[in-house]
């Protein structure tokens, strides 16, 4: 479980996060949704320590993360995997080297053991026979899958995904969503996904937190989101004409 308590983050006079408190359930796919610029990415980057919060606390289970020393933080981060919006694969490394990277860095496994793990992770994301390819030779969806393989290489306890569907076609988006959901359930990972893709919200969101102008505006499940009377949430979720029609239809039913 990850818990944030009253966190505030300001960038040169602009307060991006305004006292957000939330709890992300263990072994579930937790979604942070909100419009572009609402503070989703800043919230996620603050939780993983890429941004230092001005105020508030971040707990990984019972560990107060933002007050940890360098060594303790480093140790905890080895239990964290992250999928970045642009995949963030190392350009100069092959697929195999990318996935092997955390293993080489933090384990004392032999080359054979590392290769076995790399191949297992690549098989898990359906990326077999791509070991020797470079990121520039992969499509957007393939890059995301390799990034997921790298994120799970060290068997993380926590998985963060920043807009995993951005730039992907609807079919590939569903594939990535399903992969995240499956991995979360299979390994009992606490997963947090930043998204504004409504297919993801309905498809994989066990718990959803809606961020509006830097504040937590709503919290609930993907079933509850359809029947909420929160105006800002509805404006966001049912922004498209089609979505409005679907909801209108549902209400009529």
């Amino acid at each position, binding site marked *: 479980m990850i818990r944030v308590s009253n966190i505030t983050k300001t960038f040169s006079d602009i307060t991006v996060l305004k006292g957000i408190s939330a709890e992300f359930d263990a072994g579930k796919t937790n979604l942070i949704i909100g419009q572009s610029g609402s503070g989703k990415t800043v919230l996620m980057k603050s939780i993983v320590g890429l941004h230092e919060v001005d105020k508030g606390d971040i707990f990984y289970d019972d560990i107060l993360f933002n007050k940890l020393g360098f060594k303790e933080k*480093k140790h905890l981060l080895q239990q964290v995997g992250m999928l970045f919006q642009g995949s963030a694969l190392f350009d100069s490394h092959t697929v195999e080297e990318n996935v092997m990277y955390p293993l080489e860095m933090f384990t004392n496994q032999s080359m054979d053991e590392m290769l076995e793990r790399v191949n297992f992770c690549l098989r898990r994301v359906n990326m077999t026979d791509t070991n020797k390819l470079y990121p520039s030779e992969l499509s957007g969806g393939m890059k995301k899958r390799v990034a997921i393989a790298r994120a799970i290489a060290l068997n993380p306890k926590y998985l963060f995904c920043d807009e995993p569907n951005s730039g992907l076609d609807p079919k590939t988006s569903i594939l990535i969503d399903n992969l995240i959901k499956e991995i979360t359930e299979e390994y009992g990972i606490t997963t947090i996904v930043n998204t504004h893709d409504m297919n993801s919200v309905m498809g994989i969101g066990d718990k959803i937190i809606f961020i509006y102008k830097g504040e937590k505006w709503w919290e609930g499940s993907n079933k509850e989101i359809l029947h909420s009377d929160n105006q800002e949430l509805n404006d966001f979720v049912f922004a498209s004409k089609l979505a409005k029609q679907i909801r209108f239809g549902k209400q009529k039913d």
Partner: protein
Amino acid sequence: MIRLFQTIGEYILFLGKVISKPEKWRIFYRDTVKEIDKLGINSIAIVAIISAFMGAVITIQTAYNTENPILPDYLIGLAARDSILLEFSSTIVALILAGKVGSHIASEIGTMRVSEQIDALEIMGVNSASHLVLPKITAAVLFNPLLCILSNAVGILGGWIVGSATGAISSQQYIEGIHYAFIPYYVFYGMLKTVVFAFIITSISAFYGYYVSGGSLEVGRASTKAVVNSSVVILLFNLILTQLLLS
């Protein structure tokens, strides 16, 4: 002025992050060898070409500007040798490498920053500054003195070939000048300056690349800043080192 002190402060803090024990020595050695290839071995051709022409031009210019019957011809060889050893091979080559290597480092690290590759390293618990920059600094500090020696040799050779071919100085006189009153300390002095310049080029360029924020435009700007500022700092340290080491 305040901005300058702020940048110097940030640079010192950055160095504090960079100069720390590598996570895994095996990876550090491997990366350092890769960087020696990228930053050092790939610079051999440009250093050799520039040094050959530099030596040739110094010899010809010295010859045409010292057409005095009182001055013996071998002094042309001596002047060319000392100019190359003391100044050209270390400072001019450093300025050229600031352009070639500096822009490469700043754009490489800057691109890693804007494409979140550095964030990916941080998330893994890796000290990204040390992991990315220390092998580059080590590679340049180890290999650039060899480039300096190469530059010395090729520069003197260039002066000899062109000086004799153009008739500016006879081959025998040039060789006599090269041997005359040779002070081995000058070679050490040039290499020492090269080590300092190598550190300046790699660390300043990495600093500008590491703190890029934005997109490709900012990466380009950082690359330009890296080259300009490392060149200025090289010139400043050239002055300081000359005063310290030759006075």
